[in-house]
């Protein structure tokens, strides 16, 4: 497995070099931001063109970052999700308070909490760019937390089982999750890129070393040399 990263010094390659070369091995693509049209996305796309396994794949990236796809996938895999609605303009009876997430190509860090029925139509209009893009509405039922997920580990101890499960399902090495904690448990609402400064790079570093160690041991085993200690 080859580790490609712009962020992690001990990676095997950086994205700029990687994109210019053919790929023959499976790829672990480590980035705090896998958004479409960013380097993190291109690394996965390049690996896919060469038919090798890549973590995360482009489909996995899109499934995590596009809110309705995230929620549907989480549901199918038994994670708790809110009763979300996708709207282009204010319609029908809308439960309050509510969390709003933009589902457009431009907005990152889009969470808005709306408590008042008066403000809701204006906010939907704004976030939908006047009905051009959908907005995802999630009922607000618990305490809202933003957590950073790194290879299944969480920056918040209370949610460590949850992030483990998230990583198993979504296969995104680093991301920010918006969740709510209420009496039923931890509800997944949103996933977006983490900011570089929000990531605990020591965890990433340890992970990279673990993978490299395993890779080295395997190569010794392949050459018939028993690994000692």
């Amino acid at each position, binding site marked *: 497995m080859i580790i490609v990263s712009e962020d992690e010094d001990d990676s095997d390659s950086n994205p*700029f070099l990687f*994109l*210019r070369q*053919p790929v023959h091995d499976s790829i672990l693509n480590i980035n705090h931001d896998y958004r*479409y*049209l*960013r*380097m993190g996305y*291109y690394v996965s*796309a*390049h690996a896919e*063109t*060469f038919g090798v396994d890549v973590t995360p794949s*482009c*489909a996995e990236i*899109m*499934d995590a970052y*596009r809110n*309705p*796809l995230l929620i*549907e*996938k989480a549901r*199918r895999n038994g994670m708790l999700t809110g009763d979300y*609605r*996708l*709207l*282009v*303009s204010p*319609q029908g009876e809308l439960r309050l308070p509510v969390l709003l997430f933009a*589902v*457009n*190509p431009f907005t990152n860090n889009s969470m808005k909490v709306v408590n008042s029925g008066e403000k809701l139509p204006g906010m939907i209009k704004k976030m939908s760019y006047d009905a051009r*893009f*959908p907005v995802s509405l999630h009922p607000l039922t618990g305490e809202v937390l933003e957590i950073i997920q790194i290879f299944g580990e969480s920056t918040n101890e209370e949610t460590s089982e949850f992030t483990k499960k998230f990583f198993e399902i979504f296969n995104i090495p680093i991301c920010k999750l918006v969740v709510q904690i209420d009496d039923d448990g931890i509800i997944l609402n949103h996933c977006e890129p983490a900011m570089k400064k929000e990531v605990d790079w020591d965890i990433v570093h340890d992970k990279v070393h673990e993978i490299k160690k395993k890779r080295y041991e395997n190569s010794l085993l392949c050459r018939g040399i028993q690994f000692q200690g």
Partner: protein
Amino acid sequence: MKIACFVEAYNFKDSSERSALLRFKSTAESMGHAFEFIFKDKISKIQNYDALFIRAVTDPSNSAYIVSRLAEQYGLRVIDDPHSIRTCSNKVILHDIFMKNNIPAPKSSLFTGDYSGEALDDMRKTLGFPVVIKTPYTRFSSHVEKANNEEEFIKISRHMLRKTRVLVLQEYIHSNFDWRVGMLRNEVLYSCKYCIPEGGWKVKSKINGRNVWGDTIAVSRDSISTELKETCIRLSECVGDGLYGLDVKETDGGYKVIEINDNPSIYEGYEDAVDKDIHERIINALVS
């Protein structure tokens, strides 16, 4: 079967596009299927259908991708499927696919902003001038420019790099028209010539400050050369088995593929002017 056709309001503005959409509907109905137009506010109802046909502009970052992926996951037959959208919408990914599969195409390279003398020399030697510069996300020729010399290249590319970290550079290939070959399930569905308007170099060119489209001349799919057909089949197979429109230049040195589009334009009286069965074939692909 119940077919959903995902559209946006703009799909009904041009009368020949509107007529084509209505032709799809009447064709499906005459074949015994229900055909309903759905808009983005009904994305979450997609599981109520058996097949999805997308006519709204596709891109991984717009609503069409969401409906395509949801439909795929609910087990619907989908044109355009998410994999084809992800692949065809991005010129950097296409560049990769062309290289990997030895698709005959203009010489091309990726550019990430290295303006050193060595890099510019290298570019001049391999691609020469004029050079064509494209952003990954261009469509309808909107972010495709031609630089006639190094000065123009630096100016245009610097401007484009403000919005993207990678550009695709290509040798310029002069032609009076692009072949447009429509593919469905890796077979040729229709073919036409998209002509370059006089005074321009793209099918949609800005001439005296005005956008001008060249003429479309439909050509029977049976009459195109075997070489063109085989080139198109080979590239189509590299992407998937959906509905694609390939743009190809005919040169003295053989055919050179410019791009493969998912979601190709189908306007009444244009692409369907000679091969009249394209609506029926597409509906068939959605229901069988």
